[in-house]
């Protein structure tokens, strides 16, 4: 932590900062500034009236207020329910563990239109629970928890499974109760990962679009939806830009507060490979706790998934695989049907470069954030998080007005994985930084004592430990890309239709509802398989550490 150490690492840290900085500058900051300028300075004169209109309109104020408090509430509930689940997956081995964990990622990729269908079945007039939550804040909050639980489970879990349980055992042997050990020992150790995940959940809920469109109404609407309305229904680009500025200011303030909160350096942790930490439950209390947690996950995550599978097999003559057969052998010669194999191939064509870009840029940025001392590292971190808190409408329109020179990228298919990577990079950073912060001090010092150069220490010591966290970030990048609809739909051609785009098409006309559900099940299956694949890869690699 001494100044001499910081001086030594500086040149290569600066070099590593260049690619992420350039990427962000060209694909985020430049388009953002260009579109806001275009919207707010229409004829060479600054449209102050747009700001006045936004600030004085009571409807806009209530939209801003709703955006803020629903995001806060969504975050609190998601973290509260995600922590026990993260603990159960990190610390216990039980039958079906990896399958269950893979299931929790599935919501993350589901198009909101499809989730809307499932939620309507579970929480609508025909609810098996006897509630009708349509048009209430509860439907929105539950949907945000459904979508974001995976962020907490994985983001916190990846640190939790590497904390040596002997610390907790030691505290307990000194007479501390279970709850006290959690509050005073475990929680402080997990703090960086919890704050990281909470920040991601907050940003996702703050800029929520699809969930609000599907489950909200005129009384429950976010700034993001209002930006969309102003830009596409009213064609008021000045108001849309003013709202986007308002949203951006809100996100920046929140990120700066988050930066202050997480400023305290992470405690130095004795980390262990996860294989050693997880064990079978021993007491009946532990079994009840695991069962209760899995029951909660089942209710929130698995119920909607089961509903969708049931819908995909529902036909007038009872359960059958007709809709799946229709996907493979379309009953009619119509371009509405894209063969699932083609759609999967197209989706992977975007997902693979997106994961590579996000993992590469995110890892470089993570190292810079951990290694740079003082304000600069934190500032870098904050700026890299911004794309997640910026309206997708704004970024999408920004690409259009800015990226036409020197090379016209606007109609290029490369823009899709780039747009996906922009959203995925914060996930790579948030999952790797807490782990890197914890390993770096102890291991780097040990390596230095043994005479290794910083680069050697990074390659041989940090990287293997960080690779597990990187796998989590990469998995999210994959999920973001494969489930993404907005940017893809704008550039996708009929010949490169992805899975979410084909679901959108099938849901866009009467008579192909079952096929849309079948396609959604295909999407869920791919995500589940990818999650389990990465999980098993992670397990075997960590065994060698």
């Amino acid at each position, binding site marked *: 932590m001494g100044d001499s150490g910081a001086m030594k690492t500086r040149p290569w840290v600066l070099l590593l900062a260049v690619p992420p900085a350039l990427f962000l500058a060209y694909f985020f900051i430049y388009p953002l500034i260009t579109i806001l300028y275009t919207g707010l300075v229409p004829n060479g004169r600054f449209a102050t009236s747009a700001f006045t209109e936004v600030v004085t309109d009571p409807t806009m104020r209530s939209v801003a207020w709703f955006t803020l408090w629903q995001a806060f509430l969504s975050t609190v509930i998601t973290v509260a329910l995600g922590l026990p689940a993260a603990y159960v997956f990190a610390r216990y081995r039980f039958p079906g563990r990896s399958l269950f964990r893979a299931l929790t990622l599935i919501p993350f990729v589901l198009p909101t239109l499809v989730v809307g269908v499932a939620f309507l079945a579970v929480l609508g007039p025909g609810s098996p629970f006897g509630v009708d939550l349509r048009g209430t804040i509860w439907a929105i909050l539950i949907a945000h928890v459904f979508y974001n639980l995976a962020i907490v489970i994985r983001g916190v879990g990846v640190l939790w499974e590497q904390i040596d349980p002997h610390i907790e055992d030691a505290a307990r042997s000194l007479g501390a109760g279970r709850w006290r050990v959690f509050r005073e020992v475990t929680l402080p150790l997990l703090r960086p990962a919890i704050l990281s995940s909470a920040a991601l959940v907050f940003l996702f809920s703050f800029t929520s679009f699809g969930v609000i469109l599907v489950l909200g109404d005129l009384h429950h609407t976010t700034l993001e939806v209002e930006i969309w*309305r102003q830009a596409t229904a009213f064609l008021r680009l000045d108001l849309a830009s003013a709202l986007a500025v308002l949203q951006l200011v809100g996100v920046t303030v929140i990120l700066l507060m988050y930066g202050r909160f997480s400023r305290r350096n992470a405690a130095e942790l004795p980390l262990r490979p996860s294989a050693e930490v997880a064990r079978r439950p021993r007491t009946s209390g532990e079994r009840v706790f695991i069962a209760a947690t899995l029951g909660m996950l089942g209710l929130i995550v698995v119920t909607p998934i089961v509903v969708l599978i049931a819908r995909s097999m529902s036909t007038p003559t009872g359960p059958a695989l007709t809709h799946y057969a229709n996907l493979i052998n379309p009953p009619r010669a119509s371009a*509405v049907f894209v063969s699932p194999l083609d759609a999967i191939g197209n989706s992977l064509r975007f997902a693979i470069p997106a994961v590579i870009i996000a993992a590469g840029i995110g890892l470089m940025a993570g190292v810079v954030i951990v290694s740079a001392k003082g304000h600069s590292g934190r500032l870098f971190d904050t700026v890299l998080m911004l794309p997640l808190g910026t309206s997708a409408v704004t970024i999408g329109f920004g690409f259009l007005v800015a990226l036409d020179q020197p090379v016209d990228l606007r109609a290029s298919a490369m823009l899709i994985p780039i747009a996906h990577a922009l959203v995925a990079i914060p996930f790579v950073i948030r999952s790797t930084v807490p782990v890197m912060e914890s390993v770096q001090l102890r291991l780097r010092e040990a390596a230095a004592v043994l005479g290794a150069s910083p680069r050697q220490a990074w390659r041989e010591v940090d990287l293997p430990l960080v690779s597990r966290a990187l796998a989590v970030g990469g998995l999210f990048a994959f999920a973001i890309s494969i489930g993404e609809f907005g940017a893809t739909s704008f550039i996708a051609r009929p010949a490169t239709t992805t899975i979410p785009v084909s679901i959108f098409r099938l849901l866009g006309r009467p*008579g192909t509802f079952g096929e849309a559900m079948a396609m959604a099940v295909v999407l869920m299956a791919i995500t589940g398989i990818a999650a389990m694949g990465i999980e098993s890869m992670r397990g075997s690699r960590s065994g060698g550490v």
Partner: protein
Amino acid sequence: MKHVLNGLLIAAVALAVAGCSADDTQPDEVVLMTHGSFAVSDGVLEAFTDQTGITVNVLQSADAGAMVSQAILTKDNPVADVLYGIDNTFLSRAIDEDLFVPHSAAAIETVPRGLRVESDMVTPIDFGDVCLNLDPDGLAALGLETPDQLVDLADAAYGGTLVVEDPTTSSPGLAFLLATIATFGEDGAYPWQAYWQDLVTNDVRIVPGWDQAYYGEFSGGSGEGDRPIVVSYATSPVAEVYFGDLDTAPTTVLEDGCFRQIEYAGILNGTKAEQAAGQLVDFLLERTFQEDMPLNMFVFPANADTPLPDVFVDYAVIPTDSRVMEPAWIDENRERWLAEWATVVR
């Protein structure tokens, strides 16, 4: 100094070369910007390539409003050469923004007068009607007659039966709002705001998009909800028959209070391939494309010489007195109407 001169010379030559190539050689690609509902069978756009040697690259926006915004934002350096799918609700704004250059399509004489616009800035390609769809069984189960006028739905007997789309997020939703404005007017004894007030009293359900309304809330056809009346298209019963392999349509259309949506194509101002763009617009109005449209997008071809598919001939209705509104009138009032609508339903 010499370096600077050399640089200028090279720049001048490069510009001259670029200038020549833009004018003289046929581009090998045109970009078609369209909305999310665009769909075409395999081989149709390839037929254009076979005819002309030009490949069509399709750019799709989420919806028509987003597409128009994108076209306005990029008008100094358009991202596409042809825009297709802009309808009469957004047309006037696009023309005011100088988005298009005039073009007289080769087959324009095949288009009925009622679909054409006065200037040749855009070419009509297809049309369709947004109408209320009815579930006769669902209505009968509630002991209700099938309504035959929009105004019937203001009657308390029809409470809890109607689902519509939010006009600020959905294009059929906007079309239905415009149909009510055209039907009831702005200042009569019973203006459109009063009609909507009655719909609200009758517990109208407002959802953000067509698929939530039709699949989620509507009880007829492939809908899974409990409302027997929905804002949809006049061709929705046709699609039910076609995709469901049925002999009779499970749903019907209320022919009063329909709104006609006409979709146009135009050459984008600033294109570097104006001639090729014109060829593509011509192609969109020719038989190959026109014939393919009905079963992909469930719209009617604008070219009156196009034979319709059997399922359209047997099951489609074209409402006789569909509401038509001047694009300029819509553009002038859209923002105010939407704001007033929001006040009534909030």
